[in-house]
């Protein structure tokens, strides 16, 4: 067979365009044909690269949105030049404030709920969502822990966009924070049963809701629904410690 025909043969094999007999013939030929193996390897490599370049989905966009948010924080507000004496004075005061702050704040004693909420920042930029004043307001309220205000806006937004996983997830978290547990579980359960990036965060938030109601067994049940390897592993351990 000509080399060019082999390339097409590989393509048809990979695209499931061969009959059962042709497929068996290809698989029989493959182990002894180095050229065919090379074409197959090239094909898979190129296919993966194109998928990588052309297959951007909602998760990819969300990831970029996270980067943009941190980028603004860490690159736009760079270090400013301060006179040394001023800097020294500032540092002395800051150190004192830091010691007092740490004593009050005690991050090492942070509850699982506080630690979890801290990693949940509602980011609405770069997702084609900017310009929606209501959403911007809701995000600002949520991020500044004005949960009663956030609840009102998010409830309206969730009613308007019942399929918007992000809005509904943050609405669920807001309900959790204002101790409306039954409603929080109802909203978050829908997110858990969907396929969004918030799926297992929602499961963790439901576990928190049960923990806050002293229902240890339900909290544990929800923790079990989170597969190993998700980003919340440390938080899961922290909550399990609390459940003991």
């Amino acid at each position: 067979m000509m080399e060019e025909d082999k390339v097409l043969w590989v393509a048809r094999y990979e695209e499931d365009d061969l009959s059962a007999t042709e497929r068996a013939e290809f698989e029989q030929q493959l182990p002894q044909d180095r050229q065919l193996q090379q074409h197959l390897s090239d094909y898979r490599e190129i296919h993966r690269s194109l998928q990588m370049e052309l297959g951007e989905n909602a998760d990819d966009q969300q990831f970029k949105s996270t980067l943009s948010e941190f980028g603004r924080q860490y690159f736009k507000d760079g270090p400013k030049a301060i006179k040394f004496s001023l800097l020294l004075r500032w540092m002395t005061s800051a150190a004192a404030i830091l010691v007092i702050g740490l004593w009050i704040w005690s991050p090492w004693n942070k509850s699982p709920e506080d630690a979890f909420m801290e990693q949940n920042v509602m980011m609405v930029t770069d997702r084609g969502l900017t310009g929606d004043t209501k959403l911007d307001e809701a995000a600002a309220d949520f991020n500044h822990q004005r949960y009663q205000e956030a609840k009102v806006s998010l409830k309206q937004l969730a009613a308007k966009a019942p399929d918007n996983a992000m809005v509904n997830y943050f609405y669920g978290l807001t309900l959790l924070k204002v101790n409306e547990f039954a409603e929080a579980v109802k909203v978050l359960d829908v997110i858990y049963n969907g396929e969004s990036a918030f799926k297992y965060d929602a499961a963790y938030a439901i576990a928190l809701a049960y923990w806050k109601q002293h229902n240890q067994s339900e909290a544990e049940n929800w923790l079990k629904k989170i597969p190993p390897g998700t980003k919340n592993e440390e938080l899961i351990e922290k909550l399990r410690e609390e459940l003991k």
Partner: protein
Amino acid sequence: MSKAVHADQRYLKALINNDATLIKEIYQKTAGKIRSFVLSNNGNADDAQDIFQEALVDIYRQAKYKDLQLTCPFEPFLLLVCKRKWLNEIKKRSILQVTNGDDNLLHVGEDTFEQAEQLLAQQEQSRIFLAALSKLGGRCQEIIKWSMRGDAQEKVAEALGVSYGYLRKKKSECMASLIKMVTKDKYDGRR
């Protein structure tokens, strides 16, 4: 023998999972260094932010779509990728003078160099594949672009108004043309 995966693979996992806590840690540890490097080499804060984000997106995509396994520490790897990207960029902009010209931004091992080079080579390869795709006929481009979006192929066929059988046949032909074009360039390039 394949090399052991480094414990910092957790950062790649964090990128894939969009884990804000660990991503923030990455920015905390490394953004300042890249900012200083770019600012001292004819760039501004916006350039630094763009380069840093581009590098993280490249790493994320390689990890997600090509199962990139980190065999070196993450921080020097990321810094090196950013640095190479910025050096390429200033070459493109024809700014010739570069301070920190040798790799004194960080002390890195051979593994880190190798892995950073591989990542950049993969990106370059992807660029070549896309350029080849743009040389195919309009229908082929349409079929390949739609097929790569991650939807079920039956759904793609429906969207394109063709039968599933036709889509498989046409996609095979289009992909074969693309592979021939790319491998021809690859082999010609070696001559």
